[in-house]
């Protein structure tokens, strides 16, 4: 087990989340807007080739936050454009993230079928 890698994942992942919390507490951005911004930021950073070094450095610390989802979208598009040309711009993003989205949909469906919201207090 690479402890150094775990520490890096912890620090980088924690920092990205801390930035999110700064935005929640010190700006008027709603959580939904912050998530959208993180994903779009991930696409931009991924597209500029700036996110891959972070993934190489911190592993899950960079792939697990939503910026990583954005970077995956960009990476998928880049590979698909290389192979299929312009057509790839429309298939690459969802192609690369298909597993994540599909699992989330199926999980939500199952939870929706079998679980119930509980009262709070």
């Amino acid at each position, binding site marked *: 087990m690479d402890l150094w890698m775990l520490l890096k994942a912890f620090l980088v992942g924690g920092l990205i989340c801390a930035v999110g919390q700064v935005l929640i507490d010190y700006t008027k951005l709603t959580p939904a807007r912050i998530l959208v911004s993180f994903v779009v930021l991930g696409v931009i950073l991924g*597209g500029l080739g700036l996110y891959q070094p972070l993934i190489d450095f911190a592993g*899950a610390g960079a*792939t697990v936050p939503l910026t990583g989802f954005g970077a995956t*979208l960009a990476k998928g*598009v880049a590979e698909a*454009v290389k192979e299929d040309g312009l057509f790839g711009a429309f298939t690459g993003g969802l192609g690369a993230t298909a597993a994540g989205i599909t699992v989330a949909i199926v999980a939500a469906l199952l939870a929706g079928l079998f679980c119930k919201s509980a009262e709070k207090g």
Partner: protein
Amino acid sequence: MTKQEYAQWTQEESPRSKGPVNIFKAFLSGGVVCTIGQLLLSLYERLGAGENAAIFASLSLVVLSAVLTGLNVYDNIAKHAGAGTLVPITGFANSMVSAAMEFKTEGYILGLGAKMFSIAGPVIVYGVSASVIYGIILYFIQ
């Protein structure tokens, strides 16, 4: 009393978020989520998942988040963790699962099926659209 004056009063009387504390908690909990992700990633690498290890790790976190949401505990963690459980992929999964659970009382199609995306939808819409723009630019500059 003008709106500006009243806004000033409101600001004076409203307690502030405990910024530094919240940020530290988000850092800690977000770090823990990513560390779990990293543990899973190394596990899948050892099992021979190769390049897909990172994706498998994220998928596992999605499932974990769905289970915790289904058991009605995710929101109790998130209350303290804030962005620490919102920004990781677990937050994305929680927003879909919680909406599906909440709105199934309005039916399986327009309740569960449609409302599932009410919070997570925009993330997909703008993420995918941004990637399409990026793809088109990439095609023309290559």
